[in-house]
């Protein structure tokens, strides 16, 4: 969205709550992720060694639907939280509109693919 140069422009632009909703989402998802991710790191990195995260260990753990849901929640929330955070950065630093459009396009596609991959992976076990 370009800057309103006059107040008429400004008035016309002023009717979307998208930014507000994202802003609230960042805070709520952040609050939830604090617990989910710190727990996740503790359980998979501090408590056990990286060497323990073998194929079998992962498959075994994810056989439990509770862990499945836990991990999927992290996947979904953190990708959204991260993607929106990155969108903030892109909108801050990429000033030309055409560039911004394709950078965003490529980025969101990658995120969507990762989300699909993660979801399929989680629920295909």
């Amino acid at each position, binding site marked *: 969205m370009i800057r*309103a140069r006059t107040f008429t422009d400004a*008035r016309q632009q002023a009717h979307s709550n998208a930014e507000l909703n994202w802003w609230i989402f960042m805070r709520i998802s952040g609050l939830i992720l604090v617990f989910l991710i710190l727990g996740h790191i503790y359980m998979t990195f501090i408590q056990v060694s990286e060497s323990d995260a073998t194929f079998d260990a992962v498959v075994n753990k994810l056989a439990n639907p509770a862990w499945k849901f836990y991990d999927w929640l992290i996947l979904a929330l953190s990708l959204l939280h991260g993607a929106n955070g990155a969108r903030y950065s892109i909108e*801050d630093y990429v000033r030309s509109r055409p560039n911004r459009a394709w950078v965003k396009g490529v980025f969101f596609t990658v995120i969507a693919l990762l989300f699909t991959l993660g979801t399929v992976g989680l629920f295909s076990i």
Partner: protein
Amino acid sequence: MTQTHAQASSAPVSASVPMLQLKVKVLRFDPEKDKKAYWTTYDVEAQAGDRVLDVINHIKWYLEPSLTFRRSCMHGICGSDAMLINGRNRLACKTLVRDVAKSGGTITVEPIRGLKVEKDLLVDMEPFFDSYKAIMPYFINESPAPAAERIQSEEEAERMAHSSNCILCACCTTSCPIFWVNGSYLGPAAIVQAHRFIFDTRDEATQQRLGIMNQNTGVWRCRTAYNCTEACPRDIPITQLIEEVKRAVMYGQA
């Protein structure tokens, strides 16, 4: 470049006042002849209580007449002389030499960032005032005015005490890391102005202004870096005001 020494103070000289030896490093740029900005250092003497503006004026008047900057009132009310002094945005007339340098020390002076440099320390202020104008910076109340004043309590008037104190010097907006990289952000100064009207109990256009603040270019671009609050020469708690506007938008739209 080394220049002759002279007295930079506007105050009467008295032999008992110790003079500080200073190097003043100014970032200069004249698009008529320079491809890029360059630093020039001037040697000056000044008193500890002199304003940095006194020192810069002295350079202009006696050492380098082509040095260009804006200034007017000399005491922090007109908002002309916002500059980047020793790495921070300040008004040159509200910054005393003793606060930024010791004898033998260096004062660096650069133009404020995020706005196009026209010449030396003077920048194009139009984009800044465009942002200001975008928030409808005027009182709106279409209902017929009473014969005397509109009544407003002392507490209600006090809600505007900080925001109405703004002198539009641009110290805040041009200290904002987001504004540096993206001028489409309305910036702290415009939001402070919006705050002044949003929290004026007599004003009737609160919803429109909240709408403008609710856009992509409005308050949500604020990442609470606090540079604006630190830079404000009028001690306006800018970040706090912006947060108040954020909450007003949130509850106003909810």
